[in-house]
């Protein structure tokens, strides 16, 4: 099993969720994050004091999936989240050793 963790543009959430659902992935966890990268930020000015804000709002999606569907998941997220502009984000794959469903105690594949 793997955890696929994707940092995406906030307004792409619904599309990514739909892409995952169509792959049979019915659970995911989303976190509001701030991203720093190549995408340039914006300038804010408060009473003449200018601030260059380089951290931009992003969403981080974490989804635990069986190893075999990881390529499809990556593809699905990539297609759904892509706008083609800088700042579309990244996908990271991290090993997942164990998964448990709290309600039932089911483990691993059954827990996802």
């Amino acid at each position, binding site marked *: 099993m793997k955890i696929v963790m994707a940092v995406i543009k906030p307004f792409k959430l619904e599309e990514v969720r739909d892409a995952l659902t169509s792959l049979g992935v019915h659970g995911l966890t989303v976190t509001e994050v701030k991203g720093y990268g190549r995408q340039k930020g914006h300038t804010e000015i408060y009473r*003449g004091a200018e601030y260059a804000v380089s951290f931009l709002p992003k969403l981080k999606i974490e989804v635990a999936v069986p190893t075999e569907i990881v390529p499809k998941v990556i593809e699905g997220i990539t297609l759904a989240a892509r706008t083609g502009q800088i700042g579309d984000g990244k996908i990271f794959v991290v090993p997942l050793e164990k998964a448990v469903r709290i309600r039932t105690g089911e483990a691993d594949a059954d827990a996802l």
Partner: protein
Amino acid sequence: MPCDTRSLSLVRSLNPMKLRLNLATILGGIGLALMAFDPAFAQDAAPTVNKGDTTWMLISTILVILMTIPGLALFYGGLVRTKNMLSLLMQVFSVFSLVAILWVIYGYSLAFSTGSESIGAFIGGFSKVFLAGVTTDSTADTFTKGVAIPEFTFLAFQLTFAAITPALIVGAFAERIKFKAVMLFTFLWLTFVYLPIAHMVWFSEGYLFKLGALDFAGGTVVHINSGVAGLIGALLVGKRIGYGRDLLAPHSLTLTFVGACLLWVGWFGFNAGSNLEATGGAALALLNTILAPAAAGLAWTAVESFEKGKASLLGIASGAVAGLVAITPAAGLAGPMGAIVLGLVAGVVCYFAVTTVKNALGYDDALDVFGIHGIGGIVGAIGTGIVAAPSLGGYGAGEYTIAGQVWTQFIAVVVTLLWTGIGSLILYKIVDLTLGLRATYEAEREGLDLADHGERAYNY
């Protein structure tokens, strides 16, 4: 315009607010002239109280309170970081409460009663301490002969001026001052700076009263006074940790906006209420208090658009407050077009004071008390000498010369600057040596809300 008849021109060239309590005596000398207009006055010993005026002054008092709590508190609070929100709200609310009590104990007496022969030009006496002699039947004169308002009304209205002035100062050293220091400083500053200046400017026997400066609603006493005290405070307390390096962005411009609007709304009581009567003069003051901030806000954002390419909400709100400050001394004296011009000038000047001058000099006047109240107050005080000119559509009276009046205004500004500058400096030092002014490094890092008050503003 506080006075209704041209025969009062002699008096009207003086600062109208000075006349409040002791107008009757002065008017004695020109009583004959008045008789021609209203013979009834001659035989009328006791002044009449009009319920329309009483209502107007009650409302004006309430409006100035609304302007302070929550108005000023929100305007300031929205500009600080989340972790210091409550400290600002607390300071404004506590200052208001403390001054209210001090005012009725000795403040009113020291400001508005006759003092000793030696120093009576600088401070009043103790005859009205604990409001001795003030009852529901005692009255205070207005600017119109024979017309008075209940003394409780006058003193409550004046209470609100005394309360908002030190509350204005706290914006300068926001986010790094000890709460207890604010309370001690307020007590000292009210006593040794505010009360003397109010007495000198507004009481008939006061030193500045005799200079003949025009100050319709308190440009010197309230705005220059607090603005300068704020600047000294910002310098003495020092810069915030991270100033000039970190993003010290306002935590809620929404709240600042609400505060700016309530300042504006409350300022109608402040300015038009200073007319003391519900007349066409009050209406003019109200209209000018709409026009000057509107013009100043637009002027600020116009310059901003030109310089930075964008018009900001904080810009128009700051400009509007600058316009309110500038119109304060001229509210009932300028014509509407004069008010617009004064607003435009104040908006532009304060823009540069806040965005350029402050940054160049490098002091950390956190919420721009000096840049807006100090500078805006000076623009207003000097400008009043110009826009009040009848030749420019103003309502200044007597043998009005712009040059002469501007010079008088200038003197009044300088005297105020010196008194509050030196006085505040000494009082800050006293507080620093006793309680200490500045919060600890840890308290400042954690935020004053938790450190000083044990609370957090938001738990979403």
